[in-house]
């Protein structure tokens, strides 16, 4: 499948943290062509294994991208059928007012998040953000009918249709981190064309947005020699400090900081230069807010790398990425993994 098509499928689909299994079929059937084995663990992580060239005692590289997305959850049904709701994961309440949503009850129901007409507002109100607890979702049915289809605890996603913008840019909801899953797919396709010694475990992790929970358990089980997280990084926009962001269209961000193994980072930079793949540095001195954080501190500790695809407007429903950045992330990852052998591994990991 074309990687952009796959990303569209993932972005338009729904996989709120804790409810990721809705995407299992799409992910498994898409990766199947290139995988040696695929299984789902107890928490719901999808583990996709691509074996290396030497079947005996291969070392292991784990690549993680999270399949969950931020979303909303039904909290209460009002007498007139309106839904009250709360958030799952980090949501700026200002980004959900006036949105179309899909309430995932026993069937998918269309709804809108209501707002007070401007005509009725006091001048003082207009400068305050509306709190989530003061918003409602209108699915257009009376309470009796609502109760047939919707239960407290049902997940809700913003309805957004993945769309191409100018150039190579695309927009959609939850490109954080479905762009990462798509990059893993692009990477496994690249790897099918080149030799690699390592057994590579691509993991679609669950519950990253609420505390990297899937990454902890899957890393424990796989016990890799190297862990690599693919996530998204803050794409530069005028209001953000330059130092906090990476530029759109200038390649993956390679994270530098305590979460990252310096030897591996040196190697991946060398590979990028060798293959003329554009890259940028992303500075995070402490733990990253990615699956890489979980990987690093699992078991006795795992040497970890993080790659970031630049993304604008993170955690809104109009996230923007450049498809070239996604492809370059995948390419860099593939060439890096292929460059690791049982001979050079120990040296790279040595302090």
């Amino acid at each position, binding site marked *: 499948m074309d990687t952009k098509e796959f990303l569209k499928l993932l972005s338009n689909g729904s996989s709120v943290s804790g409810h990721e299994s809705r995407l299992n079929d799409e992910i498994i059937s898409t990766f199947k062509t290139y995988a040696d084995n695929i299984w789902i663990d107890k928490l719901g992580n999808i583990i996709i294994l691509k074996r290396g060239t030497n079947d005996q005692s291969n070392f292991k590289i784990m690549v993680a991208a999270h399949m969950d997305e931020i979303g909303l959850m039904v909290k209460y049904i009002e007498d*007139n059928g309106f839904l009250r709701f709360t958030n799952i994961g980090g949501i700026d309440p200002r980004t959900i007012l*006036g949105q179309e949503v899909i309430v995932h009850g026993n069937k998918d129901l269309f709804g*809108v998040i209501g707002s007070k007409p401007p005509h009725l507002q006091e001048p003082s109100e*207009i400068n305050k953000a509306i709190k989530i607890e003061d918003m409602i979702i*209108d699915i257009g049915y009376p309470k009796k009918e609502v109760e047939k289809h919707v239960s407290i605890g049902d997940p809700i996603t913003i309805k957004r249709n993945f769309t191409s913008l100018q150039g190579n840019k695309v927009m959609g909801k939850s490109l954080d981190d479905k762009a990462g899953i798509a990059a893993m797919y692009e990477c496994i396709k690249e790897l099918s064309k080149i030799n690699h010694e390592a057994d590579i475990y691509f993991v679609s992790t669950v519950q990253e947005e609420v505390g990297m929970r899937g990454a902890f358990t899957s890393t424990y089980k796989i016990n890799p020699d190297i862990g690599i997280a693919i996530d998204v990084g803050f794409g530069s*926009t*005028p209001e953000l400090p330059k130092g906090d962001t990476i530029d759109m269209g200038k390649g993956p961000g390679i994270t530098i900081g305590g979460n990252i193994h310096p030897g591996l980072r040196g190697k991946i930079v060398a590979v990028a230069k060798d293959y003329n793949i554009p890259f940028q540095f992303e500075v995070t001195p402490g733990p990253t807010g990615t699956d890489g954080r979980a990987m690093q501190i699992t078991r006795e500790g795992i040497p970890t790398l993080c790659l970031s695809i630049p993304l604008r*407007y993170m955690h809104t429903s*109009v996230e923007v990425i450049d498809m070239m950045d996604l492809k370059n992330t995948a390419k860099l990852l593939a060439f890096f993994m292929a460059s690791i052998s049982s001979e050079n591994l120990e040296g790279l990991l040595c302090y």
Partner: protein
Amino acid sequence: MLLKRLTEASGVSGNEKEVRDIIIDEIRDHVDDVKVDRLGNVIAFKKGKNNHKKLMVTAHMDEVGLMVTDIDNMGLLKFTTVGGIDKRILVSKQVLVGKNKIFGVIGAKPIHLQKREEWQKALNIDQLYIDIGVNTKEEAEKLVSIGDYVLFHGQYIEFGENLVKAKALDNRVGCSLLVELLKEIEDTSFYGVFTVMEEIGLVGAGPAAYSVDPDISIILEGTLCYDIPKLDKHLIPTYLNMGPAISLVDRTTLYNMDFRNKIVKIARKNNLPYQYRKTSMGGNDSGKILTTKEGSITATLSVPCRNIHSPTSVMSKNDYNNTYKLLKAILTEYKKGEL
């Protein structure tokens, strides 16, 4: 479907062409005269047998939206609002820019990089911009010009129990009712007028009323509906599914009581639901029609719309149908000389 076509058409105040073209195309074969005046209002006349009083039925064609004011070095578009928009509903939305409807998004700063107190404040228009995916000013200038109109992107969707979600229900709902009326009513003289630029200060209605010079006017609208639970009942302007809203008073008009009572009587006689519009906020073309030339008597009939002036406005098809029935009943009485 007419309402779908009308709501999905582009018609930000001052740029009503797409809507006007649909309307003229629909009514041309059903009216005795149709003309576009110097401001862009559509004035249609239907000739019948009655000639005691001149009736004008109006609906405004325009909708609220945005306009490009600047293009920055990164190719991001700054904008201003056209008409009354709550700036808070702009965040994290899709828009269409200019004649070629270039796709864009209005994003927001990632929550991760905000201080906690930031989310409690609404984002101002000057903090927002439209991203169409280009990297430079030069690329943007090939596609977009300062002054381009910007449209909310929103499809017409039917959902729930007989509900419709669309952008611009205020006031394509009025346009749709008036088009249907012009197509269906026979043997009754009246003017059907589709006005421009209501949302930016009732601009088209005055000149249209000046040229028609009506004795009585009925203004068709989509009006505010805010029927959320736990709000004091007297604060609820209109309810969804309780029939057409008849205006009492708004910022532009004190509606004529006799005319209003006649309409209520007609509703009762025909067993049609109705409600009063219980807020004095907002206003519409009536304000200008009322005072043009020697003045005319006006009434406003509205279809209640939740989330008005947002891309996700919601109305009930029941209300639409009942408004249409009441309108037809009023015209029947008018034909008999009872208004």
